[in-house]
């Protein structure tokens, strides 16, 4: 058995950690590239959204490299994303690729647990007693690495707008991530995080700069993966903006296991509540949260909001219409970026530059 998973953001790092620690053979999909997208787009319905195509491309490349078991998170309707796992399964089967599939349930319900039990029945036969014994430890390592990746990314988002040499944060952050990826024990992981944080903090910075504060909201795959959003987080940072986002793997996992009322995910409940002034029901996916977050960010004194969505994404198309009004009502500039297959990096750069200049104008800096 060789498991594989989406490359998405830092997901490949912590999924690999789970498999590695539990001693289960794995294949990390090759870094998402133009080839990944070409493969994904070729084999999927033309109308489907960009994240779907990217993730499908990851799976095809991993299967071609010899993986035979795919682990994918499921989610729920009404958005097409909720059917990702089901549709991707059919496509891969039609392509004649052989593999086993394991869906990680989006919500812990009895039905999901039963489905999971059925799917893992066969797989468990192939696992050794040692694998099963080490699995909880693997999960724990995976969680630790995920938190490490998130902490490093948050730090990178903070230092990037103050960097003196453009692109330096990005290089150092990638270096730090590779240290985290390489750590095999809790102790080395702790060391890697410490070293990575120091690497970022010790970078030459202009501390006198007061960067604009912008929140990135929108469809979660698009927000979390720089290949899908064409590096919006990095581009904004390098234009001198301190970026914040609340879509992280940990937030979504905590929400799935119904931990949201307790701690970290409570912020999202707050956003959801705030959206009620405009939306009286849950549209699904991140729609309500995108709207609520924009409102609250305005109250918190943020300078702007960048809203990311894949072309033709239903919940976020709904959100973008409402965000137009939110921007006016709350006097906060909101830029919606629609992403699709085309190479629109230049266009995104143009829009982000103009957006930042608009913020400067608003503040009376220019």
């Amino acid at each position, binding site marked *: 058995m060789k498991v594989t998973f989406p490359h998405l953001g830092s997901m490949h790092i912590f999924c690999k950690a789970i498999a590695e620690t539990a001693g289960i053979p794995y294949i990390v999909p090759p870094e998402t*590239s133009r080839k990944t997208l070409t493969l994904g787009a070729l084999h999927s319905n033309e109308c489907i959204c960009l994240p779907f195509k990217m993730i499908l491309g990851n799976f095809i490349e991993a299967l071609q490299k010899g993986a035979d078991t795919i682990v994918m998170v499921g989610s729920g309707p009404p958005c097409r994303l909720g059917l990702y796992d089901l549709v991707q399964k059919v496509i891969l089967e039609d392509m004649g690729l052989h593999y086993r599939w394991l869906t990680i349930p989006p919500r812990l319900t009895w039905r999901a647990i039963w489905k999971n039990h059925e799917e893992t029945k066969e797989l468990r036969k192939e696992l050794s007693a040692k694998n099963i014994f080490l699995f909880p430890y693997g999960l724990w390592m995976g969680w630790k690495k995920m938190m490490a990746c998130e902490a490093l990314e948050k730090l990178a988002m903070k230092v990037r707008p103050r960097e003196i040499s453009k692109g330096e944060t990005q290089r150092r952050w990638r270096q730090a991530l590779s240290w985290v990826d390489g750590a095999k024990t809790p102790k080395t992981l702790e060391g890697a995080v410490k070293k990575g944080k120091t690497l970022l903090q010790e970078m030459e910075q202009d501390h006198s700069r007061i960067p604009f504060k912008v929140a990135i909201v929108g469809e979660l795959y698009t927000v979390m993966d720089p290949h899908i959003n064409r590096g919006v987080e990095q581009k904004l940072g390098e234009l001198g903006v301190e970026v914040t986002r609340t879509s992280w793997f940990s937030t979504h996992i905590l929400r799935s296991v119904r931990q949201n009322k307790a701690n970290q995910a409570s912020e999202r409940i707050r956003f959801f509540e705030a959206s009620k002034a405009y939306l009286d029901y849950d549209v699904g996916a991140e729609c309500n949260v995108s709207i609520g977050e924009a409102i609250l960010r305005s109250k918190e004194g943020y300078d702007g909001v960048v809203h990311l969505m894949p072309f033709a994404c239903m919940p976020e198309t709904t959100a973008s219409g409402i965000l*137009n009004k939110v921007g006016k009502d709350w006097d906060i500039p909101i830029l919606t970026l629609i992403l*699709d297959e085309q190479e629109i990096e230049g266009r995104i750069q*143009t829009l982000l530059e*103009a957006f930042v200049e608009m913020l400067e104008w608003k503040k009376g800096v220019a």
Partner: protein
Amino acid sequence: MGNYLGIDVGSITTKSVILGQDDQVLAKSYIRNSGRPIEAIQKGLEEVLAQVGGSISIHGVGTTGSARHLAAYLVGADLIKNEITAHAIAVVDFLPEAKTIIEIGGQDSKIIVLRNGVVVDFGMNTVCAAGTGSFLDQQATRLGISIEAFGDLALQADHPVRIAGRCTVFAETDMIHKQQIGHSVEDIVAGLCDSLVKNYLNNVGRGKEMLSPIVFQGGVAANRGIQKALERELEVSLVIPKHFDVMGAIGAAKLVKRANLFKTQFRGFDLTQKSCSTRGFECSECENQCEVIELLMNHHVVACWGDLCERYRHREKA
């Protein structure tokens, strides 16, 4: 203060202007790229130089438009600015009380919302190029009429046909149907103008507050059919600046003037005499397979871009 050069290289046309002491337009050129932006930039420089009598000293160069980086490498620009800001700057000086700018170019359409001379909101088409000049161009060619005559022809229509406005690719299907059941060319052309305007207002203009005075600029502002259709939809008359076709270039020149340069990077007008070309290759170092571009001037590599990892750019510096 001196003279400043502004170059706006869009996807379809290249615009160049020289602004004099008091920001007056000393020379301007508007030419089609025909897919060869480098030649177009060289030709544009030649044209503006000829208009000022063959010699002028330039104190700064600003570039804008989707090929602003290419243009900057080529001419040696002092300032590279996105086209949204460039257009806004040009309008703020021309009509300080302007509240909305509609800019429709070859491949781009934008809306810029101004309040008290400051940009407060903007929109630009991203993944879709519908509702732009190139669609009109294409249809004009298909109907065998010149794009210059297109707008006036639309004004002669008695009953503009209704054409689906959701997407111009779909609109074409609709349009051919109307043509085959016998509608006159004038009515179809007028219908096309209406459809493009609706598309623009629905996509780019959606949710934006379009208050008067509204300035209409960009290449398509020459099209009176579109102007009338916009005025009908918005129920206001539009202000079209004298230099509507080169406003981006004017903005770029103004911005570089404001930057108060010490010394310009401009390579000089003799650039037009040099052999300039680009050479592309596909890098095979990783899966990204970047298409890397090198700019050659008199057979020497002077700039390089397109490499995501920047390995070639750095090699060149080293």
